[in-house]
Each structure stands twice: as C-alpha cells, then as structure tokens.
C-alpha cells in the first residue's frame, strides 16, 4: 500500500515543469480544429479523423500526466491574494488578458483534483467518441466540418474546466454553447434540426445573461469588501489586507483564488483581543452601488443568478426544454456534449464555487429543490417517450437533477462522482443507441425495433451493462454514485431549512425507481422480444470494430468506476478523499457559520439494501409490464385511462406549449409592437435616419468651406492663430 501510494505521489514530470505545458491540453484540440476546419476538405476523410483523434489523444496523455502530478506532494501553486501556497494545484499565469483601470483579468490555467478528474473524463470520453465517430460519420459530406466542431468543442470544454478565473471559464462556457449550437444544427438543411440548434442557443443565452450579471455583482462585491475589510478579517496565516489588494491588482477579482480568499476572509473569526471589528456576512456594504445590502444577501442573489445560468447549461428547470430537442444532432455529439460533458458544466460551476455556495442555505436549498423537481419531472416524461434518444435525453436531464440535488445539499464529492460515472454509462448508452440506429436504417422509435439483441450482441451487452449501471444495480458504479448522493443527503441538514433534506431524499428515491423503470423499458423494448413488423430493416447488423471498441471500453469503465465509491482510504470513499483538498474551503466556511449540519456515519448494509431494492423494484416492474403483461408495439391499442396519462407524459407535460403560451407568444407580440413602433418608427426613422440626415446635411454644408484653394486654407489657419494671439493679448496685456 505504501509503495503504491508513493508511486502515485511521485509524478514522472515535475509539477512545475508540467504547469508550463498546461496550455497544450487546450492547444492540441484547438490546433486540430484549425487543421480540420481549414484544410479538412483537402486532407481526405481518413486523415481528418486521424488528426482530430490524435489531437484529443495527445490532450488525454498530457491530462494523465496532470492527473498524476496533482497528487504529487510537491505540487503547490502560489496564491497572489494571501501569502499562501495552495497544495495539490498546478497553475500557470500567462499575464494580462485585459486591464481596464483597477479591473484586471489574467490569462491563466489551474488544475486541481476537481479539474484533473474532469480532464480525464473530457479527453477520455472525448477520445473514444472521436474514434467512434470516424466510422459513424463516415458517409457524411460534412465530415471535416464535424471533426473541426468536435475538436473545437473539446478545446472549449477544457478551457471551461481549466480556467483559473470566472472570465476565462465564461469563454469556455460560451464556447461550448456555440459548438453545441453548431453540432445540434449540424444538418442545417433540415429546418427542424436547425431550429433545434437555435432553441438550444437561445435558451442557453437566457442563462448566460444571468451568469454575467452574477459575475458583475461578484466584482462589485469583492471591490466593496476590499475597501471595507479590516485587518481582523485576515486572521489566517499569510493573510493581510495588503496582500489581498496586491493580489487583486495582479490577477483581478474574478480569479478563483481571489474568491476563495474573499470567502475565507469573510468568515475569519475575530482574533482574541482584536480591536477592530471584522466584516461578516451580516455586515452591510459601506460603499458602491450595493450600499446597505449585506454581504450574505448579495451572495445569495449572486448564487441564485448562477443557478439560473447553470440551469440553462445543465438543462434544469425551468430551462431544460432545449436538451431533448438537442438530440437532432449526430448521436456521438449527443453522447459527448449532451450527456457526458457540456451539460455537467453547471454542476462543475457550483463545485468550483463551493466556498461561496455554502454561505447561503437559501441558495443551497433552491438548488437542491430545483434539482429534485427536474429529476422527477424528466423521469416521468421519460416513461412514455418512444424515441430511443429522447428517452436518453430525459434520463440525462433527470440524472443532472440528481447531481444538482447533491450540490445543493453540499455533498459536492458525490455530485462529481455521479458526474463521472454518468459520463461513462450515459456515453455508452448514447453510443449504443447510435449503434442501434446505425444497424437499423436510422430507426429511433423503440416500438418499431425489438429483438435487436440477437443480431447486435456486442451492442446489446454493453447497453445492458450501462442500463444496469444507471439503474443502480449492485455492484456497478451507478449504484455507488447514486447511493453516495442519497446517503449524503440523508446525513445533511441545511440551517433554517430542515424540511429540504427529507423532501429531496424522498424525491430522489422516487426518481431512482422511475429511472430503473424507464431504462429497463427502453432496454427490453429495443433488444428483447420479437422484431416489430413495422421495422425499417428486416435484420439488424452489428457495427464495426471502431464503433464497438469504444462501447466496450465505456461499459468496462462504468463497472470499474465503482472503485471510487469504496471506503479504501482513511475510511472515506476514494472519491471523497481525492476531492478533499478542493472542498476544504467550503468545509471551513461551514464550520465557521454552521450553515450545514452533517452527521457522519458509514453507509449501513440497510441503506445499501434499500437502494438495491428500489432499483430492482423499478426494473422488475418494467420487465413485468413490458415482457409479460403489456408488450406494447405500434398499432396496439392501450386502455383509455392509460392512454390519457400516456398522452400527457408523452407530450412532455405540455411544458413546451406552456412556454409558448406564457413567454414566447407574448414576447413575440411585444416584440412585434416594439418593432413597429420603437424600432421602425422611433429608432429607424426618427433617430437613425433623422440623425444621419441632419449630420450629413451639416457635413455637406461644411464641405463648402473646403474649397481646394491653398490661400483660403492658409487664411483659415492664420485667422485661428490671430484670434488666439488676440485673446492672449487682451487677456494678459490689458491692465
């Protein structure tokens, strides 16, 4: 054990050397995107996929080194904001990005345990999906365009997780949104698909707007704190108002270390005998536009805005509607972007800002409840969807809801754990669905499939493993991660909101049952039973090695990832121990403010049994219903009562229609009026054309002065000077 530990704690590349090379992790896919995008047409299909996969593969290798290096005991980044060194963090600061007055943003990357694990997920799953796509997209004309976008996406996602400031993170945030838009609307000649892309983009933009406002508020908040904080606030080793200000001057207020130091200073207990009162979350802000609001209050607002931003990107209530439509894109894209990576950005954001989130039980409770409701509603909608990709999409929304629940209850490590396992099994499921479509003439309606398992043995087997994993059957990874979430919620109580924990826990258990049900339904209808008479292809054919290979790897990973959930190190699950340093700042805030109460206890056998029973209950119900009692196929009539419920869920609870009625129609009407009155009449005619007309007239009139006569020019100059000199003489020579 000791030697193994030493092995992991001695990085082959010295951490400081590696930190300088971090840019290559982003640079390689970016370069790949450039090469594929610019020269793709000339390179040919094989070369394009080779370049694209090699770029991501290269990133994967460096990410592995980085992953290794963050465990190195020598690894420590200097913090500019307090004379401290942050252990287990690689950081590189490449100087000023832009500076406007006091506000400064630097270009910099950082890799800590959280980022490291996401790096592996992004580049690892990304690499597999690149390999898979080489065959899946082999008949498409836009082959090179596809790989350019995909590589660009990987680069942007890596930027998002490696950014050391909110601003660079936002670049990645917008970048992945852009790539998602491009890839959803990849087949843009189909109007519905292009529309789906636009819907995703616009929904995301609503969230991004909230994100921006939150970031601006944070800037103001930190500035107010800088001017108001006293020496008593910096009672931790290495902290002082001067070092904090100096750090802000050097790297700016949106740097994560700045925010971390800010959070730490805001909860520092006053030193004994300290004469000056420290600023606490209840202190009103003294200066600036936020005057008289308390620090804690503003932080809650910031976090709620971030929640809106995160719910746009991570498809949570109320902005989840774009994700199911995003299935219009190529299936590998759904696997990479809309299941494994991009949609988890919201979870990542809150885990990254863990030390801010724990300031506000209200915000935490909101996050948890939003997650729970999303999880339940999406699971219910998934019950009656017949499109294989739609079921998986709603399942993704639902699983993301679970992660939000965990984040909201402060069980950050469990959220990340579930994020990782979900990335493996959901990517496997999506790629499996793609393989099914590939082998069945692009059929996506599960009622028109059936019995596919006989012809597609590998696909069926891997899909089965992934289904068991998401269902939460022991001993697959999904069981451990889901259980970690539910167990963590069970142990946690938010200050002042004791009802949130139990509510969320019950909803989560319900979701677990629902998940087991609809996933089993999906698997059973697709792979078992008789082949539907309405199937497009009489016989399915198994996909080639480059498609099956990634499936197998992902299926194995969705089993192996269970290691993270075992109590191997210091009596903690591996993942919790591993992410310990990342969430240390949050623990510090919690212990100072008491916002969250945690009762530690091991997961008992009873808990495991309960979780397993839930999973088996759902799965058994589905098997029973769809295999024995009611094997619905197209054309068969369902009883009227069931049909009504089915229609309601099938139509996704009419949420899209509700939004249409509540927001889109009024907005369209309003925008029509605004267009006619404000834009066309006031702005276009009066303001723009009117001003342009007046200024152009004035300019034309001035042109008459410009005669082309050199004497006149000289005369104007002379007159100006004579006027000036005359003024001076009158001013100074008259007594």
């Amino acid at each position, binding site marked *: 054990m000791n030697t193994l530990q030493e092995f992991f704690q001695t990085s082959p590349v010295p951490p400081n050397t590696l930190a300088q090379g971090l840019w290559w992790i982003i640079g390689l896919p970016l370069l790949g995107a450039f090469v594929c995008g610019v020269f793709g047409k000339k390179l040919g299909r094989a070369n394009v996929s080779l370049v694209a996969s090699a770029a991501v593969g290269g990133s994967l290798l460096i990410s592995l080194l980085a992953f290794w290096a963050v465990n190195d005991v020598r690894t420590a980044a200097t913090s500019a904001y307090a004379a401290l060194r942050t252990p287990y963090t690689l950081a590189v600061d490449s*100087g*000023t*990005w*832009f*500076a*406007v*007055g006091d506000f400064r943003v*630097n*270009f910099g990357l950082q890799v800590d345990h959280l980022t490291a694990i996401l790096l592996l997920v992004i580049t690892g799953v990304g690499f597999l999906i690149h390999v898979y796509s080489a065959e899946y997209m082999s008949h498409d004309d836009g082959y090179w365009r596809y790989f350019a976008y995909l590589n660009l996406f990987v680069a942007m996602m890596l930027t998002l997780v490696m950014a050391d400031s909110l601003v660079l993170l936002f670049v990645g945030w917008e970048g992945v949104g852009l790539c998602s838009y491009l890839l959803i609307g990849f087949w843009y000649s189909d109007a519905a698909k292009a529309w789906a892309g636009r819907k995703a983009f616009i929904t995301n933009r609503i969230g991004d707007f909230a994100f921006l406002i939150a970031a601006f508020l944070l800037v103001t908040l930190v500035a107010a704190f800088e001017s108001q904080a006293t020496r008593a606030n910096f009672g931790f080793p290495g902290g002082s108002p001067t070092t904090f200000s100096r750090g802000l001057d050097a790297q700016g207020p949106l740097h994560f270390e700045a925010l971390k130091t800010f959070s730490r200073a805001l909860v520092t207990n006053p030193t004994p005998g300290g004469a000056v009162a420290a600023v606490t979350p209840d202190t009103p802000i003294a200066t600036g536009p936020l005057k008289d609001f308390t620090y804690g209050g503003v932080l809650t607002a910031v976090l709620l805005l971030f929640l809106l931003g995160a719910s746009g990107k991570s498809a949570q209530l109320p902005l989840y509607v774009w994700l199911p439509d995003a299935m219009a894109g190529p299936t590998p894209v759904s696997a990479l972007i809309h299941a494994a990576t991009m949609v988890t950005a919201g979870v990542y954001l809150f885990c990254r800002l863990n030390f801010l989130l724990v300031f506000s039980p209200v915000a935490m409770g909101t996050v948890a409840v939003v997650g729970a409701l999303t999880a339940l509603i999406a699971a219910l909608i998934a019950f009656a969807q017949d499109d294989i990709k739609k079921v998986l999409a709603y399942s993704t929304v639902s699983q993301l809801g679970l992660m939000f629940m965990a984040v909201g209850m402060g069980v950050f490590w469990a959220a990340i754990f579930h994020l990782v396992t979900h990335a493996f099994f959901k990517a496997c499921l999506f790629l499996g669905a793609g393989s099914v479509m590939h082998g069945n003439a692009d059929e996506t309606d599960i009622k028109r499939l059936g019995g596919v398992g006989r012809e597609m043995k590998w696909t069926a087997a891997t899909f089965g493993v992934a289904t068991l994993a998401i269902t939460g059957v022991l001993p697959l990874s999904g069981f451990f991660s889901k259980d970690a979430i539910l167990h963590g919620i069970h142990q946690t109580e938010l200050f002042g909101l004791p009802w949130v924990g139990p509510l969320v826990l019950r909803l989560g258990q319900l979701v677990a049952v629902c998940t087991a049900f609809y996933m089993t339904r999906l698997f059973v209808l697709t792979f078992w039973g008789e082949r539907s008479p309405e199937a497009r292809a009489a016989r399915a054919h198994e996909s080639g090695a480059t498609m099956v290979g990634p499936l197998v790897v992902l299926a194995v990973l969705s089993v192996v990832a269970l290691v993270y959930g075992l109590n191997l190190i210091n009596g903690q699950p591996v993942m919790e121990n591993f992410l310990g340093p990342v969430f240390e700042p949050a623990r510090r805030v919690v212990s100072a403010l008491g916002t969250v109460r945690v009762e530690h206890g091991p997961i008992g056998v009873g808990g495991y049994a309960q979780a397993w029973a839930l999973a088996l209950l759902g799965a058994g119900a589905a098997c029973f219903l769809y295999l024995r009692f009611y094997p619905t196929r197209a054309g068969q009539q369902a009883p009227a009562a069931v049909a009504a419920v089915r229609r309601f869920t099938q139509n996704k609870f009419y949420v899209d229609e509700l939004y249409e009625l509540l927001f889109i129609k009024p907005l369209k009407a309003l925008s029509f009026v605004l267009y006619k009155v404000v834009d066309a009449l006031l702005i276009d005619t009066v303001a723009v054309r009117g*001003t*342009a007309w007046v*200024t*152009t007239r*004035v*300019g*034309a009139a*001035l*042109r008459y*002065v*410009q005669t*082309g006569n*050199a004497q*006149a*020019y*000289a005369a*104007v*100059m002379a*007159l*100006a*000077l004579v006027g*000036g*000199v005359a003024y*001076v*003489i009158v*001013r*100074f*020579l008259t007594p």
Partner: protein
Amino acid sequence: MRVPSIPAADFLPLVPAIILLVGACVLLMTEVFLRSPSRGYQAPLSLFFTGLAGAVSLSSAFEPARPVFQGFAAQDPFSSAVTLVVCVALGLAVLTSSGFLRSRNAERGEFYALMLFAASGMSLLAMSTELITLFINIEVLSVGTYALTSYLRRGTRPAEAGFKYFILGAFSSAILLYGAALLYGATGSTKLSEMAVVLPAALAAQPALVYAGALLVAGGFAFKVAAVPFHMWTPDVYEGAPTPVTALMSAGVKAAAFAAMIRVFLVLGKGMDPSVPLALFSGLAYLTMIVGNLLALPQRNVKRMLAYSSIGHAGYLLVGVAALFVTAEAPAGDGFRFFGATPLLAPGLSEVAARADALKGLLFYLLAYTVTTVGSFGVLAALERSEDEPKGTAWDLDRFAGLAQRRPGWAFAMAVFMLSLGGVPPTVGFMGKLLIFRSAVDTGLVGLAVVGVLTSAAAIYYYLRVVVAMYMRPAPEDERIPVTLSWGTELALALSALAVVVLGILPGTVTDWLQQASTLWLGQ
C-alpha cells in the same frame, strides 16, 4: 574655448535613426549602381532596415530616461515606443508600396529612401528636447513627405497636393518657428529642461510672450497632426499623394508630431497654469472630433473619407492629450474655466497615475490607429487603377461594390479595418477608444468623452457604408478584377488585419508594456 565632450553612450539612442539613414543611403546607392531593370530587392531591403531599427528601439524600450547631447535630446521609453510605432507604420507602408509602384512602373530606390529619411526624422523628432533640434527634425520629416507626395509626377493631382502641402507646411513651420522664437525671448533658452526652470519667472514677467509663443508652437504642431482648424490641407494632400505615402503620413507623421507636442507641452504645462494647455487641447479636441467626422459623412470618395477620418482620429488623440493636463486640485486664481466646471481628477487617483494612464491610452491609440489605417490604405492601394485617377473615380465607393465575392480576403480585411476605425469590439480600435475615453472620464473631462462617443457613433455610418458596399452590393458586370497583386500587399493586409483582431482581443501584453513605459517616463 571649451570643447563640449560628448560621451559615446549618447549616440546609442540615435541608433534606430542612424540605421534608417544608412538604409536610405544604401538604397540611393543601389538605385544608381545596380542598373538591373528589376528593383524587387528594394522593398525587402527597406524592410530589413526598418525591422532592424524597430528591433533596436524595442530592445532599449525599458532603459531609464536620460538626457543626451547635453539636453538636446532624450532617451526614454516614450521615444522608443513612438519610434516603434513609426517603424510599424513604415514597414507596413513599404510592404504595400512595392506592388503599388510596380503596377505604375515607378519602383525606384528614391521612393524607399525618402520614406526612410522621413522616418528617421520622425524617430528623432520623438526624442528631441530642444526647440531648434525639434524644428530641424520636423523639416527632415516634412521635406521627405513633400517629395513623396508628388512622387508620381504625372497628372495634376500629385503636383497640386505636393504644392499645397509644401506651401502650407512651410507656413506652419514658420508659425512654429515664430512661436519658438517668442518662447526663447521669454525664457532665454531653447532647451526644454532649462525652459522649465526659468518658465515661472518668465511667466510672471511677460505672460503674453509665453502664452503667445505656446499658442503659436501649438499651431505649428496642430498642422502636422491635422487638428481643426489647421486641417484643411489634409483631404487634398492625402488624396493626391500615392496611397502608401498617405498611409505613412496619416500614421507615422501623426505619431511623431503628437510625441513632440506632448513633450513640449508637458514641460510648458509644468511652468504655467495647467488649465491653459487643458483649455487649448480640449478646444482643439472638440473642434477636431466634430468637424472631422462631420466632413467625412457625405464623402463617397473612400480615400478622402479616410483623410477626414484621420482628422477625426486626431481629435480622439487630442482628448488623451488634454487628459494629461488635469490636476488633482483646482489651480489657484481664477484660471481658465472650461464649460462651467473645472475638471479634476477622480478622487483617489494620483496625478502621475492619471497621466501615465492617459499616456498609455495615447500610445496604444497611436499603435491601433497605425495598424488599422495603414491596412485600410493598403486595401485602397491594391484596388485603385491608375487609369481611373484622371477621372477621379479611382477611390469611389462603387469600386468596393461586391468586393466580398471577388476578393473575399481583401473584403474581410477591409471590413475589419472599418470596424476598428469605427471602434467596434473586438477590434483594436475599440480598445484604443476605451482607454482614451476612460482616462478622459477619470480626469473629469466628461464632455470630451461624451462628444467622443457621439462622434464615434456617427462615424460608424460612413465606415459601415464601405462594408455594406463590399458585402451587400452586386459587383459591376463589366468590372475587371483589380490588378495590383503582390506578396507585399497581401502580407501587409494579413499582418495588419491580424494585429487589429489580436490586439483587440488580447491587448494585455502591449498595454502592460505601454503602462510600464509611461510610468517609467512620467514617474521620474
């Protein structure tokens, strides 16, 4: 007789200018001794010397400021930065020149030599700290540009432009010289360092003499930077001069003249009531921004439009100059009141920091304007055909119609330049305006900032007109594709478009550098 001893180290700051002068001589000699008909080597040769000069000035950019030649000149980060801007402008202009001249069968060594001579004058002007030295360098750069203006002798336009530029330039030089004489009369010295010492006493004794002298000197500079009402030569000369020369004039001459003006008035401003230069430059800035942009509005001739736009940009630069003279406390006595309130620094901002900010903004704006304007004149040079010049349609807006289909690369570059001139993010023009207006707001010159923003908004109209023509109008059917194709032009366009975008998105390194240079220079 006491022989002045000049240490050899005093020659070091002159190295960039010496390199340019040697380069010019080499070009003259190759022109007469290498008699091969092909002169394709001349542009690369000029580029070599330009690059060398630029590299040397960059390498000495962070040396502490020190007077050289007994106070006749100074070596400091400011002069290095300006020399660098001049070298950038010169390099890009040389690149666009070769194709332009070859298509007119006029590629001669004199052209490049004159450009290098003029550039050496600009570089030396930026470091002059004595009025006579300063005047001589103004003449060096002026004589070079006079000759270049009428370099293409055929046709009436170049002759007219050269003649006007020469006459009016001589007039302005005379004004400058007269002003310098008055200042000498008042202070008994022509060295800025000595004037600074004597100035308070001189001002007390003969205020009219000092102020009149300062006014006349300002008038002379205002001519060179094309500030209203000393701007009237600009459109005629810019239009008549060969387009690469126009590019050099609008960027390099402007940069050098601004540098000298700032240097002189920072010294004069120390001695006199600072509200005087503040009022002077604010007034010039108001007039220049408004008149320059208004005159550009009705122009359909793109070259003339760019000339007026160059006036407008001088106005924005003058805003930055005015910001240099705002003080933390209201000056004693009644002073000059400007539009009601006396502008003051924002609280908590030290004078040196505010000035360094303004200076950083100015230098960045000069760089931004240089890459953008030289690029846009480059597109113009590539598009114009010599046979259209007598008809006066060589630069008509219609020549840009449908350019996006015929030459998408050029159209894109031109669109980038137009957006940058208009100050639209994410271009370097936006960052420049942002820095300038910010320092105007910080120094309480809110009126200037507001007028600046308003005129920029109006300016978008005429810049976008070019973009609209390129992208939304069909190309004329019978139009031939423009002829001037050369690697130099393409390279210059690519480089400047790249610079415009990259500096617009990542200005950090450069602004840091300029900030350091400004602080280093002003903080002493």
